[in-house]
């Protein structure tokens, strides 16, 4: 009897001690894990050495001026028609430049604070350029070899595809690098060094556009290419290098049409003008079937992956808020896209199919376009 009581007591004591040990041990593991995640990461090792080839040779008579306002442009991908290798070929580095840029993501990147501090170091740049980093800023210098890499890919390995909630890199950083290299090139007394900086700016932009997943990164990349090309044009004109100035001028002329064409493509698939809110507050989509067909066409066979992704997300809205027939059609297409061999398209379609957006998302669904001019209310 007494030995039985003693045994029970010992088990009770051991159980009580075990509760403390388990709680404390688990807490320790969680603290270490959290500290590791939030501590500044060790700097990514310098990228593998790379070389940047010279721009391709070309005959001026081979150049063509693309007509972005002509009807055939409707079938074009929104990309430079002019071969940018004539101005600034990409480097041949084997690293993924995104592995460096991801650390500056706002605000959870392991080096976000460094990027933010760099923004505080900016000084006034040349007229029209804005604030720039000092020419010898350590972060600016650290970034340079990463622009000599051949690839920059964030999705879906670094940032998973989560529809409207998909994370984007800290685009302020490459934008400011580009402006800073531009300013440094403009101030350089050595034309060769100036040209290196302008070409680096274009490579930065090309890397940003390379992946073709998010429209916002593409637009920042386009802006980088435009300012870098402007630098080359100005320098080539100054040097009397008309051949180089000519190709730069043609490329420069392609920048604004691409923004407009991008806006038009985005408008074509945007369902915001068709959102109706009843007096009871119910939100629905009153879409013509033709509009749904247009969205389906872009999502399934558009020439640009970023616009395909946008159209796929719009299909997600159709799938939940449009008429029964349109919902069924959207679901069929989303299922088809969710079996795509392209992982970003596949993940985006699966997200759009499985995630019911809130009415707020529907009301302001496209952050890149202003609200439609005449929002209407159904009685």
């Amino acid at each position, binding site marked *: 009897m007494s030995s039985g009581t003693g045994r029970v007591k010992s088990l009770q*004591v051991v159980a009580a001690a075990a509760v403390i040990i388990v709680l404390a041990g688990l807490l320790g593991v969680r603290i270490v894990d959290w500290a590791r995640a939030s501590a500044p990461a060790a700097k990514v090792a310098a990228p593998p050495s790379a070389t940047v080839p010279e721009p391709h040779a070309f005959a001026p008579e081979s150049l063509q001026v693309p007509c972005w306002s002509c009807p055939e442009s409707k079938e074009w991908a929104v990309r430079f028609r002019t071969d940018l290798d004539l101005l600034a070929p990409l480097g041949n580095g084997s690293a993924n430049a995104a592995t460096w840029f991801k650390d500056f993501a706002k605000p959870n990147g392991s080096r976000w604070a460094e990027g933010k501090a760099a923004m505080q170091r900016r000084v006034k740049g040349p007229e029209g350029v804005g604030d720039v980093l000092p020419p010898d800023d350590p972060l600016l210098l650290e970034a340079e070899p990463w622009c000599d890499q051949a690839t920059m890919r964030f999705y879906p390995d670094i940032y998973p595809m989560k529809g409207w909630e998909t994370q984007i890199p800290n685009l302020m950083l490459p934008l400011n690098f580009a402006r800073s290299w531009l300013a440094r090139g403009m101030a350089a007394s050595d034309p060769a060094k100036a040209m290196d900086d302008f070409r680096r700016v274009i490579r930065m932009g090309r890397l940003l556009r390379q992946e073709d997943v998010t429209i916002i990164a593409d637009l920042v990349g386009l802006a980088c290419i435009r300012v870098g090309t402007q630098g080359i044009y100005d320098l080539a004109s100054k040097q009397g290098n008309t051949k180089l100035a000519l190709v730069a001028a043609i490329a420069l002329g392609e920048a604004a049409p691409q923004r407009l064409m991008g*806006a038009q493509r985005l408008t074509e698939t945007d369902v915001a003008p068709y959102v109706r809110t009843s007096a009871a507050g119910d939100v629905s989509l009153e879409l013509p079937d033709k509009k749904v067909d247009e969205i389906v066409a872009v999502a399934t066979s558009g020439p640009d992956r970023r616009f395909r992704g946008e159209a796929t997300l719009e299909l997600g809205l159709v799938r939940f808020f449009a008429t029964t027939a349109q919902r069924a059609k959207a679901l069929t297409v989303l299922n088809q896209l969710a079996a795509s061999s392209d992982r970003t398209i596949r993940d985006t379609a699966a997200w759009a199919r499985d995630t019911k957006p809130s009415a707020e998302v529907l009301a302001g669904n496209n*952050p890149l376009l202003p609200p439609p001019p005449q929002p209407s209310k159904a009685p």
Partner: protein
Amino acid sequence: MSEESGSVEKLLATLQPPEPAPALQESVLSGARAALTRQAARDAWTRVWESRPLRLTWAVSVVVLVICHAGITELRSASARAGTQTARAVREGNGELAAIARLPRLDGNVQPLVGVETYRLVEERQSIRPPTAKGKESAS
């Protein structure tokens, strides 16, 4: 017969056990009382289990640990909440980036502005358009 009975009584009288010592009863009873009032011997487990300071320490430790767990959960979720900058967030974010990222809303039916093709398309459109639908088409 009477002699026999007298001898038996005498014999029996000699066999009577002696009286216990007068203090024995008292000493036995006091010993029993003492044994009853004395606490049973406790082993180490029981002492630990029944220790009030140890129980208090255990309770405080559990409360502190649970609070710490709640704290670390909140820290992690706060960093997760703040951890994603999206294209949507840019609209309310840095004006410089938003200026680059925002696009105008364009009417998909806007006509090209150059070349003979423009006039052909405009004429073609106007020829199939009902009279009431005439009007300028432009970017909205």
